């Protein structure tokens, strides 16, 4: 219940703001255009990469922004002073990020299939991909927000060091079966690989794994990010207190 209350509050405070809504509309739109325009690529080939990328960036964007901001505004203390577990706080943050990622992820899916007429081969795979990858990337964002800072920019910079390389090793731009074997091995440690593979299955352009394996991969990453995030947030809290005290 407390986690849901925090998710609702985050939605009102951060996600439903004009800037976030604009980001949610403009970001997939421009990504869509940059993927399609000038490339002789079938829509079904472009949509999986685009969808998984949009879900990753949107689900993992606002959590790492809101937590350091709340630390700075001391509203995070309000959550810590409440009789709720630390996990409930992080779960609420993940929930809000996941819902946002899911909503934004539906934009390219809707435009691609309903307006431009892309063929959706496996709706179940797409549903699983959207839901599980939204949760996974939201958990990744919240894990990064454990970075002991009150400046949201510091977290975003650190996150982009991970997110941007992930785009190139996860088969978003070039399908995995066409990239060198060494990079394909590296792709296994990227959750975006599994999200993208599921989306490729959904649009019928062939994944290198199957739905169960992709879903399992994403679930394992979600659990790992959640556990690691909880541990890091808890351990690094003292570091924030110490730097606050010294400043």
């Amino acid at each position, binding site marked *: *219940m*407390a986690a849901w*209350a*925090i998710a609702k*509050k985050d939605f*009102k*405070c*951060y996600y439903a*703001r004009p800037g976030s809504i604009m980001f949610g509309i403009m970001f997939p739109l421009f990504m869509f255009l940059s993927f399609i325009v000038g490339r002789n690529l079938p829509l079904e080939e472009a949509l999986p990469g685009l969808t998984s990328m949009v879900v990753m960036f949107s689900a993992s964007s606002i959590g790492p922004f809101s937590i350091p901001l709340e630390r700075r*505004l*001391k*509203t995070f*203390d*309000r*959550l*810590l*002073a*409440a*009789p*709720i*577990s630390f996990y409930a706080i992080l779960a609420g943050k993940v929930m809000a990020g996941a819902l946002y990622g899911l909503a934004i992820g539906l934009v390219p899916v809707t435009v691609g299939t309903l307006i431009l007429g892309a063929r959706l081969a496996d709706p179940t795979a797409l549903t699983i991909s959207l839901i599980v990858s939204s949760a996974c990337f939201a958990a990744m964002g919240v894990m990064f927000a454990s970075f002991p800072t009150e400046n949201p920019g510091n977290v975003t910079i650190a996150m982009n060091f991970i997110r941007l390389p992930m785009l190139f090793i996860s088969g978003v731009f070039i399908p995995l079966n066409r990239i060198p074997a060494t990079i394909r091995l590296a792709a296994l440690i990227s959750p975006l690989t599994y999200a993208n593979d599921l989306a490729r299955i959904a649009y019928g352009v062939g994944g290198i794994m199957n739905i169960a394996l992709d879903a399992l991969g994403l679930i394992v990453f979600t659990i790992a990010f959640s556990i690691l995030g909880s541990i890091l947030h808890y351990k690094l*809290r*003292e570091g924030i*207190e*110490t730097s606050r*005290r*010294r400043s």
Partner: protein
Amino acid sequence: MARVIEVKELTKYYGSLLAVDHITFHVNRGEIFGFLGPNGAGKTTTVRMLTGLTTPTSGTAIVVGHDVVREPRAAKRKIGLLPEASNVYTELSVWDNVMFSGEIHGVPGRERQRRAKELLEMFGLYNRRRQKAGKLSKGLKRRLSIAMALIHEPEVLFLDEPTSGLDVQSTRLVRQIIRRLNRSGTTIFLTTHNMEEANTLCHRIAVINRGKLAAVDTPERLKAVAERTHSVVVSFSTRPRGLKEKLGKLPAVESVLEEGDKFRLYTRDPPVVLESLLELARAEGMKIISLNTLGPTLEDVFIRLTGG
């Protein structure tokens, strides 16, 4: 008298920095307990430990029967916290802020609505309930913060510098609220560096300096500590050269402080100082414009205890 807060040898290090140094005290049920100290003395760190926001390095703190380290959630259910900064959610409406606070404190739906209405009415915010909290003035945000801290009807309310930075009107109102809450049975733990506030509000005061407790007692008994620091405040029609030095040499004067157009003469024997002041005024051809004798203030006690 039942103790609602019991602190033993509580200590906090931030890295190598000792913020709170083995403090021991207790707070009785129904008290307004003041925690007085200069900036950086360890007041906020103590509140953060007692409210479970930071973990003590050593020592124990029992709040309403629950150890804040071993049973933090049980302790948090019984307490409300008003931090130094009014940490309201500026993007949420006044109503949503209070409702959110109720939700995370586990107040059931209908009860939450009833309490929120009651509190916002009590704090004069009900008519502004749809307004975004970010649009409120500093004083109103403070009131909203207190309402948020009270939604779950805590037994102990921690107020960290509740009137810091507020205008006179808001300060007065917040102090009235504190008294009203205390009359209705809430124990108040108040940190402040404002002597007047501690003097007029608190039943007992702990003075903390550089992480150590210097004294814990009632304001009047603390003032008795500084019984010898009476003072005579005088202002003259003229100020001949070397007047301060001459005042300092008068019998029974221990020290002289210049305060604007007045001089404050610290003494153990005010009548002797008064006589010699009159003699000095006659000898120098000055008129005495004003003359007051003052007992020790809590500020004197504070300075004496903290070495300020």
